[in-house]
């Protein structure tokens, strides 16, 4: 089974370029496990990625991959899927890539409900360019472009995608990697547009500015901060403070049109 992980990795590209402790590698591991569990033909899987730290993930996968332009991964993926509907198309984007630069592509891909699986690596910051705030930076967090803490609210990404028409939306963290693997697998199986928000910890650009500490502290923060959606809803109001839900947010709804 060791070979399973390795056969999905481009050996000549390892070790990867992500910083020590970056959660993107854990998301990549979950994706590989989900793809393996689905037993898809490797020739029938295409991984499309955008730009940024998360966008580099496609380059490490020993599949047909496409490293596209900033924010436009979903547009490229839509083209791939329409040209050959038999392909399974997985789209890897960062939080800024998906919701700022490619925000319009995201909502319209969800509205069209084409069978794509979008995995948004949410590390709360623009990591590669030096820690600027993104639309998913939590309120009051410090960023290079918000030295006093950002005053803006972040998007609630799964609800944004659901509101735009996505049939399957979910969120997990790198600490809850088993849930992440399940959500990615279910998202790929879902016949319409699926979005999985993968919360990852950026120790270099986000953690350092916000004094959140080592990669382990980031994982502990995820463990303590995120609660499974059904459990979250049953919590008394005062206990919900400082917690956020994760899991599959709504029952999957069928694609908007027959695939």
């Amino acid at each position, binding site marked *: *089974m*060791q070979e*399973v*992980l390795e056969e999905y*990795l481009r050996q000549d590209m*390892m*070790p*990867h370029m*992500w*910083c*020590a*402790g*970056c*959660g*993107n*590698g*854990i998301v*990549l*591991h979950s994706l590989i*496990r989900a793809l393996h*569990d689905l037993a898809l033909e490797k020739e029938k899987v295409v991984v499309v990625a955008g730009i940024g730290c998360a966008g580099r993930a496609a380059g490490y996968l020993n599949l047909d991959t496409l490293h596209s332009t900033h924010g436009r991964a979903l547009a490229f993926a839509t083209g791939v899927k329409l040209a050959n509907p038999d392909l399974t198309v997985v789209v890897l984007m960062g939080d800024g890539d998906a919701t700022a630069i490619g925000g319009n592509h995201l909502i319209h891909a969800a509205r069209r409900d084409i069978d794509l699986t979008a995995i948004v690596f949410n590390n709360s910051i623009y990591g590669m360019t030096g820690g600027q705030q993104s639309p998913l930076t939590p309120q009051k967090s410090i960023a290079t472009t918000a030295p006093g803490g950002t005053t803006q609210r972040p998007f609630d990404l799964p609800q944004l995608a659901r509101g735009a028409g996505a049939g399957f939306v979910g969120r997990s963290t*790198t*600490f809850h*990697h*088993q*849930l992440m*693997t*399940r959500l990615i697998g279910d998202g790929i199986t879902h016949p319409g547009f699926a979005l999985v928000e993968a919360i990852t910890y950026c*120790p270099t650009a986000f953690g350092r500015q916000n004094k959140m500490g*080592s*990669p*382990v502290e980031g*994982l502990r923060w995820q463990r303590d901060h995120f609660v499974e959606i059904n459990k979250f809803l049953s919590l008394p109001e005062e206990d919900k403070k400082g917690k956020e839900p994760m899991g599959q947010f709504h029952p999957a709804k069928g694609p908007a049109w027959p695939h």
Partner: protein
Amino acid sequence: MSGAVVDVDEKRCKGCGICLTLCPRRVFNPDERGKVKVSRPERCTGCLICDNLCPDLAITVHRAKEGREGGRVRPPAV
């Protein structure tokens, strides 16, 4: 009696410290370069925390019964 065999790929390890801190059996120790080495292999129970949470995909846990040829231990489905 150990439950599993754990391997660390030194070329991939960047020494982030996740496995060092989270391993409940303290199987790992840092070497002089800050990378991780398996110092107490007999204590590994195969819980897979290190394997699943290694961001560098550097750790592999095998079933002890069959040794490394027996294959990777798989996490249960949720």
